[in-house]
Every structure is written in structure tokens, then in C-alpha cells.
């Protein structure tokens, strides 16, 4: 029994990494731009489809395909931010939500038009195939890869925001955009950069999932809901909180499907509601 619990925890950990990658982007965009990007799940989906095209259809190496997918989704994010969002920063935030909702409708159907409605699963790249024995079962190497990527992104993001000049400028903009503007920070450029970075993080989550998760038109709307849950539990705009709550939700839903599969969904939304009511700043706010 303890072995099952430990093993299921590992499964949950790899699940948590997809959640972390999409929530990280959602969180930094909200933290800096103060926009809750409803279309963030659609960026995750576009990232998955682009990676599928480059890897599964064109046969490029897996790493190259992921890189190209990040670039493509980053470009899409740039167009969304520069072409549309940046023009309505002064409007009521409800309209910003509605605009990103319009993006969902466009991207979800565009994906169906381009790639068709049938779901796709390309093969696992050869060097990531196989499984390691762990806790009396075999743990797929691919899951180890996913965990490694997620942790690496966490370390890199921490280093960028805490240790680099650009990171400091972004944090300054997040805490007071007018003051940042007054001392000479190019705020619009920071906004674009952050949005593109967020889009690429979502795309990375989508792209590394393609051989093991389904690539289908619905994955965007499914992921955005989970990402909302996580960012709410971690605290909107709190990157460390997003990481910790990704771990919690990932592991909990792995156990949830094991112990009480029927009401898993209900409980996760109930947790979200309780956190919003009792601690709207998130569980991990200082």
C-alpha cells in the first residue's frame, strides 16, 4: 500500500509539471499586466499542435520541434498582446476578460480547421522510451523527463526574476507600472516581453505533453480551468505559490483518481472556492 501511495505520488508529480508550466505563464502575465488571460489554455493547445506538426508530421527531432513550437506560439502571443490587448489596457478589466475569451473561440476553431477534429498521439521519441523500476512498479522514463523539464523551468524562472537586470525591471513594473515608467522603463516593451514569455511557457507545457497526453481541440479549455484553480490557490500573480499549488493539485488529483474518483472534479473546485472565500490572496502569500 505504501508503495502504491509513493508511486502514485510520482505520477502526480509529473502531472503537476504540466499544470506548473501553464500556470507559470498565466501567473506572470497576471502579475505584470494585471490581465487574466482566458486564452492561455488555447496557447497551450497551439503549442501542442505546432509541436505535433514539426515532430509527428514533418519528422524533425523532438527538441527542434519543441523549440519551433515555442517560437511560433511566442509570435502568436506577440500579435495578441501588441495587436489587441495593448489597445484596451485602459478599459474595464471585464472587457479584457471578454477579449481573451474571444481569442479562445477563434483559436479553438482555427485548430479544428487546420488540424481536424480527430485526436492525435505521436510516438515517444526513442531516447525517452522505456521505464525504470520504482516502488515495485515501472515508472516511465518520459515522466522523469517531464519532471526534469518542469523543475528546470522553475529554477530558470527564479534565477531570471531574482538575479538578472531584466527580472528586476519586470518586478518593478509589476509592483508599480507608473513609477517604473517614470524612471525610464519601457513599460509597453516589458508587457510584450512578459506576455510572449508566458505564451512560450504554455506552449512548452503543451509541446512536451504530446507523446503521452492527447493532442485534441478540447485540451485548451480543459487546461485553462485547471490553471485557474492553481493560480487561485497559489494566489493570483504569485509565482512561487503557483509552483507549490501545482504540486498540490497534481499530486491530489493523482490520489483523487485512486481513492475517490467519482467526485475528484467537485472537490478540486470546492477547494478553489474555499480558498477564494477564506484566503483570496492565495495560500502562499506572505
Amino acid at each position, binding site marked *: 500500500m505504501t508503495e502504491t501511495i509513493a508511486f502514485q505520488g510520482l505520477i502526480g508529480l509529473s502531472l503537476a509539471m504540466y499544470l506548473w508550466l501553464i500556470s507559470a505563464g498565466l501567473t506572470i502575465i497576471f502579475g505584470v499586466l494585471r490581465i*487574466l488571460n482566458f486564452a492561455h489554455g488555447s496557447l497551450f493547445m497551439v503549442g501542442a499542435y505546432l509541436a505535433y506538426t514539426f515532430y509527428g508530421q514533418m519528422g524533425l527531432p523532438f527538441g527542434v520541434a519543441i523549440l519551433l513550437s515555442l517560437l511560433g506560439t511566442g509570435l502568436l502571443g506577440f500579435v495578441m498582446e501588441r495587436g*489587441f490587448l495593448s*489597445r*484596451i489596457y485602459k*478599459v474595464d*478589466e*471585464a*472587457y479584457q*476578460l*471578454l*477579449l481573451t*475569451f*474571444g*481569442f*479562445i*473561440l*477563434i*483559436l*479553438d*476553431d*482555427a485548430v*479544428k*480547421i487546420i488540424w481536424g477534429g480527430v485526436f492525435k498521439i505521436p510516438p515517444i521519441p526513442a531516447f525517452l522510451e522505456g521505464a525504470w523500476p520504482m516502488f515495485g512498479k515501472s515508472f516511465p522514463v518520459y515522466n522523469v523527463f517531464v519532471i526534469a523539464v518542469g523543475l528546470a523551468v522553475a529554477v530558470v524562472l527564479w534565477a531570471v526574476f531574482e538575479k538578472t537586470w531584466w527580472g528586476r525591471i519586470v518586478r518593478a513594473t509589476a509592483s508599480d507600472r507608473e513609477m517604473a515608467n517614470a524612471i525610464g522603463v519601457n513599460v509597453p516593451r516589458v508587457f510584450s516581453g512578459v506576455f510572449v514569455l508566458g505564451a512560450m511557457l504554455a506552449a512548452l507545457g503543451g509541446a512536451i505533453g504530446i507523446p503521452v497526453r492527447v493532442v485534441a481541440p478540447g485540451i485548451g*479549455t480543459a487546461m485553462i*480551468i485547471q490553471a*485557474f*484553480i492553481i493560480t*487561485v490557490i497559489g494566489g*493570483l500573480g504569485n509565482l512561487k505559490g503557483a509552483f507549490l499549488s501545482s504540486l498540490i493539485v497534481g499530486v491530489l488529483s493523482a490520489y483523487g483518481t485512486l481513492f475517490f474518483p*467519482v*467526485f475528484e*472534479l*467537485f472537490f478540486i*473546485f*470546492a477547494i*478553489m*472556492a474555499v480558498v*477564494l*472565500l477564506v484566503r*483570496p490572496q492565495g495560500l502562499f502569500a506572505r
Partner: protein
Amino acid sequence: MTGRLSPRFTTPLLALLVLGLFLLPWIAGRYPVYLAMQILILAVFSLGFNLLFGYTGLLSFGQAGFFAVGAYGSAKILLAVPNLILGIAGGVAAAGVAAFLLGILSVRHTRIYFSMLTLAFGMMIYSLAWKWRDFTGGDDGLVGVPRAPIDIPGLLSISVAAQDRYYYVVLVLSLLAIAAMYRLVRSPLGLTLQAIRDSEIRTEFAGVPVRKYRLVAFTIAGVYAGLAGALLAPLENTVTPPIAHWTMSAEPVLATLIGGIHTFGGPIVGAFLFFVIKDIIVRYTEYWLIWFGVIVVALVMGFPSGIMSIFAQRPK
């Protein structure tokens, strides 16, 4: 209703429109009548949504939850007791109670936190509809919901099983709901809600218990969503979980946005345009949502007050 046009012009026009709606089964075929019911139901749903959004300033993403409570409520009752009055009243009451209880919690927040909270509550209802198999039938839903007769024992029993007859049920109840909302937004209650939207702090200082008023608006919006759901169940004869999903909450949002949030008639016109545009697009392509996405983006970028704002006075 349409600010700049004089009532001398609009009143006969509205009377003509209502008369046309009552004559519709005689002048049009089955499909237009069915479409008219869908439009009326969405109009009721959207009016409730807009009382929250346009008049009170609260953007809810959980209205589909109350729509589903109304639909499942009326379906459960109609499957047990074949009496349309009980079914629809029961569905509306269930949605009203659910909205009141969840509203107590929801109105503790505003802005994005309110939107997130309503999303969570709506999705909790969705997961119940989906997973609570014994009560809701799970993903099969509830099937064979009858269009039971309007029955007052010992007094009358009117069969409304035929589509044309059921149409009059939908029409009369929708018109009543629209009229009630029209009175409501012009009453002191409606004006107070708009004052809260425009300046919460000022209204609070004027001695208005802001939260209580928000709760009233939330409950009424839930009742309207419930009525829409309760009318849909006997129309379609089935109720399935997708009607509770957050993407379903988007329908009143789209209709209201298309019609305009700052006019009373906006959600009604929007509901009409929603189905007409959809009906035209699906003749050419199955991908109709992308066009609604384009419309939403264009409206938000171009004129966020909606199409009806062309006729209305500019909000100050």
C-alpha cells in the same frame, strides 16, 4: 428602451412585434417556431445575466450552473409528476434557492475574484450533474422529459405536448419575465444597482447595504437563468451535463455583448442576433464559433457598448 427614439414611435412597433410573435405558428413553419423558442429562452437567460453584469457590474462565469439547476429541477419533477406548472415552478425555485445560497458567498467579492468564484461554483454544479449518476443520470442525462399538461386539478388541464402549443408557454412566460425585468431596472432597486456599479463607495456612504443589493441581483439573475433552463428541459425532452459547463455560460455573455450591455433591450436583440447569425453561418460551415470569436474581438475593440448603443444615448 431605445433612448433617443420617442415612445410614440416605439410603442406601436413593440405592439406589432408582440402580435407577430403570437401569430408566428400560423405564419411560419416548425423550424422558425422552434428557433423563436430558443431565442426567447436565451433572451431570458441573458436578461438575468445582464442584470448582474450591465446593471450591477459583476461579470459571472457561473450562470450555466443555475441554468442547469432549473433544467434538472424541472426535468426531475416532470418525470415524477406530469404537471407543467409544478415542473417549471419547481425548477425556478430550485435555481433561486441555489443562487441565493451561493450568492451569499459570491457577493463577498467583486471584479476578477467574483468571476473566478462564480466559475468555481458553476463548475461544482457541472461536476455534480456529470458524476452524481443516481440523481442526474450522469453523462446520459435525463431523457424522456415530457411536455406535461398545464394541470390544475378539478379546474383545467391543457395539453401542451404539441410544439405550437408549447411555444405559447415559452412565449407568455418569456414576455412576463421581460416585462418584470423592465419594471425592475426602473424601480428604486434597479437604480440602486446601477449606482453601485458606477460608484460602490459613494453608494455605500449614502447608507445603502451594497452587499445585500448585490445578493438580490445575484438571486434574480439565478431565477432568470433557472426559468430559461426550466423552459428548455421540456422543449428538448432531455437534459445533459454540458448545459452546466462554463462554456455554456458564454452564451448569455455573447448575446449580451452583441446586443449591448448598457441598454435594456440589448440582451434580447443579442439573443435574436446570436441565433440568426449562428443559423446563417452553420449553413456554410460547421465552424461557427470562430466567427463569434471574431465578432467578440471586433466588438470589444470597436465599440464595447454593443450594437444597440448606436441607438441609445451614450452612457455618461
